[in-house]
């Protein structure tokens, strides 16, 4: 597969499969399976090209920026594509068994529309991660947002539809603020390409407002306090595979764009105060989300609030990666944490889905007795994922937090250390709460709907990936170095 072919497959294969799955619903599963295969092969090829030849750029239409649109695969993009492909494939396998069309017409309807929507979401993610054009990113954000909303609304329950509508309103208004920022940027710099913006952007009030607008929109989409209110109902009320995709991947998309904007397009315009503001909000999210998680009555709401908390850690990256020292450490720490959270949270939602489904849809934590004996694999997966969220070695959560701590101490911003530690303690508390209820032995009657083994094993696979990601952290950090933003590599004399 050539270089262009890899780019094309990653974006166009899921799109084509989604369209065909819409026209021929009976082929939905096969198309999804085939797409996962095609995307995996394209991803492997792209990684090989990256490692051998450096950053890969494809000029769509042959024109190249500023007139055309470029697709670019550097270390960060490939890193994000790695987790997208892995989690996408795992959720696809899970969904193969989750929607059983034979069980009722309602489920047949859901399955029929799940595949096209899922494939469109996957395509949107890949397109977002590979794009370097901020207007193109707006279109991918809309594609991503709409498919996420529709997947939440898939089972037609009142709570799900309400949460989906709220998310839609939030998403649309955030996108419009982002678009206004793009308009001002284009006017000022005559381009919308990230790489070119780095050379053309100059400090001034208009660009500051533009960056503020874009950042504001993206922050709300990434559910940073105070823009987090839409996330818990949306992620908790969606079907299990959808919750996994949302918490693991969709919210990370807008965060990724923020990284690109702050570190690649406008590095010279970002003040330390702005970084500290984001860090402060992130710290607030860590504490607030974890406290809320601790007091939830429903399992899926607990996991959703945990997402709010864990996303807060990601925003600690901003002040730390702008310090005098340890920038790249902070960068890689935050990203390794992102990857491990994605796998762990997906595993958590999938295993929570297994447990809830086996109980006929009831997900009160107080009634989780017997979980450990009835669904041992899912319980184990939940526990392993919890390890990563808490940050115990050798999990990716530990590796990420460790790197962030080191960066914090190196940059002299030690107060973030306290936040990380408190957050870990609170995470331990809410994970333990679930497990304690799960391990109590009690007579469990109940409409145990046996779960397909595939559903349990995919949850476990993701949990193992998260729990063992610490071993991969060196390789991941090397991957991230390819084409890393220049601002992170200090001038000669500093240790990265």
């Amino acid at each position, binding site marked *: 597969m050539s270089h262009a072919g890899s780019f094309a497959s990653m974006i166009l294969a899921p799109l084509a499969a989604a369209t065909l799955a819409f026209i021929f619903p009976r082929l939905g599963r096969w198309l999804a399976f085939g797409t996962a295969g095609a995307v995996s092969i394209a991803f492997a090829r792209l990684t090989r090209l990256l490692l051998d030849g450096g950053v890969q750029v494809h000029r769509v239409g042959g024109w190249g920026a500023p007139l055309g649109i470029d697709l670019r695969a550097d270390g960060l993009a490939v890193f994000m594509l790695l987790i997208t492909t892995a989690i996408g494939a795992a959720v696809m396998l899970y969904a193969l068994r989750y929607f059983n069309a034979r069980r009722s017409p309602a489920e047949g309807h859901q399955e029929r529309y799940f595949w*096209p929507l899922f494939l469109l979401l996957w395509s949107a993610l890949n397109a977002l991660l590979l794009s370097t054009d901020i207007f193109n990113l707006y279109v991918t954000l809309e594609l991503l947002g709409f498919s996420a909303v529709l997947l939440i609304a898939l089972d037609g329950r009142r709570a799900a539809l309400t949460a989906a509508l709220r998310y839609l309103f939030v998403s649309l208004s955030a996108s419009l603020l982002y678009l206004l920022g793009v308009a001002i940027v284009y006017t000022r710099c005559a381009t919308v390409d990230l790489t070119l913006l780095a050379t053309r952007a100059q400090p001034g009030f208009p660009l500051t*407002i533009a960056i503020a607008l874009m950042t504001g929109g993206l922050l709300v989409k990434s559910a940073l306090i105070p823009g987090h209110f839409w996330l818990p109902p949306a992620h908790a009320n969606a079907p299990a595979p959808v919750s996994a995709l949302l918490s693991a991947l969709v919210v990370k998309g807008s965060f990724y764009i923020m990284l690109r904007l702050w570190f690649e397009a406008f590095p010279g315009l970002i003040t330390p105060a702005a970084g500290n503001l984001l860090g402060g909000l992130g710290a607030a999210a860590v504490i607030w989300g974890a406290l809320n998680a601790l007091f939830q009555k429903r399992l899926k709401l607990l996991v959703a609030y945990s997402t709010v908390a864990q996303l807060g850690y990601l925003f600690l990256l901003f002040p730390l990666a702008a310090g005098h020292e340890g920038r790249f450490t902070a960068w890689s720490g935050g990203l390794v944490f992102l990857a491990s959270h994605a796998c762990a949270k997906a595993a958590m939602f999938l295993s929570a889905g297994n447990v809830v489904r086996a109980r006929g849809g009831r997900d009160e934590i107080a009634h989780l007795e017997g979980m450990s004996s009835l669904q041992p694999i899912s319980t184990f997966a939940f526990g392993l994922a919890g390890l990563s969220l808490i940050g115990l070695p050798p999990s990716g959560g530990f590796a990420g937090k460790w790197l962030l701590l080191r960066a914090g101490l190196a940059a002299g911003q030690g107060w973030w250390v306290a936040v990380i530690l408190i957050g870990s303690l609170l995470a331990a508390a809410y994970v333990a709460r679930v497990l304690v209820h799960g391990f109590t032995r009690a007579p469990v009657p109940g409409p145990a709907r046996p779960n397909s083994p595939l559903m349990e094993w995919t949850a476990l696979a993701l949990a193992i990936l998260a729990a063992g990601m610490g071993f991969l952290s060196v390789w991941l950090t090397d991957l991230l170095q390819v084409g890393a933003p220049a601002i992170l590599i200090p001038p000669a004399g500093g240790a990265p």
Partner: protein
Amino acid sequence: MLYLFDLVLLVVIVLLAWRSLNDADLFRGTVSFIALGLLIAVAWVRLRAPDVALAEAAVGSGLTGALILSALVRMRRRGRDAPRPNHAGGAIPRRLIGVLLLALFLCLCGAMLRLAQWPEGLTETALAELPASGVSNPVTAVLLNYRSYDTLLEVAVLLLAIVGVWSLRRAEWPGDVRESYPLLMPLLRIVLPTLVLAAAYVLWIGTSKPGGAFQGGALAGGAFVLMLLGGFGRRALRHRYRMRVALSCGLLVFIAASVGTMLLTGEILRYPAGFAGHWILAIEAAALISIACTLGLLYLGGRPEEAGDGTPVNRSVNGSKNGSMGR
């Protein structure tokens, strides 16, 4: 003189916008919104953006207005819709919102007015490459050549919208109004073929003058909506397989063109030299069909279900009794 025209136009636009959002009666507000859209289209003409004016008048004002009106009527029928703006107050008090937004407005004005001199934009580059682009309308060149990848994703968004609407619920067919409006059928007999012809014309002329697939698709979409109102075509619509193909052909042709161009020239969507115009027209033609069907079916607002005896399904006013949406 022109300054005065601009001033009056913009003052009316802003006032209409305020009125449409804050009017006590939602119906009046929606009608104000449609009028607002038409005035904005006039503004686009004034700003030398005729392609955008066509799209705004057809899609932004006309079809959007039709969608909102029909939703308003259905929502009123379904519930006792209080025709008053909601004074219950949200989580954030209105005064605070007003103050914050006033601050935002001032910041925006400050930022935008300060862009006193800015670089030229991409006009010169776009014009320079125009001969090689296969069309002579610069906007079409941008949409379908320079930045065709954006347009591909946009066609994907259109498909996503209709897949989503179909996943959510079944359609409620508009009532048969042929009896109450005897002039409707003669009108449709004249207007429908004209609209279809106009759509094809706008598509064709879009390569050199203002126009293109989206504007043409919007006209054809309008024809589709009129057809629904007139009560035709229900049997055809219920062949959902055919409808799905029609809705998808735009995106499929676009993807096929991407792959084809990649195999021929090595870069995605880089048209072979000399044939760019042909490829563009082919993509636009398929896109027009999909856009028209999508916009028309968005108006219908649901899956057109096969009903065995030909009666419209789901005409019940109260939705369904159980929790799911009457699937």
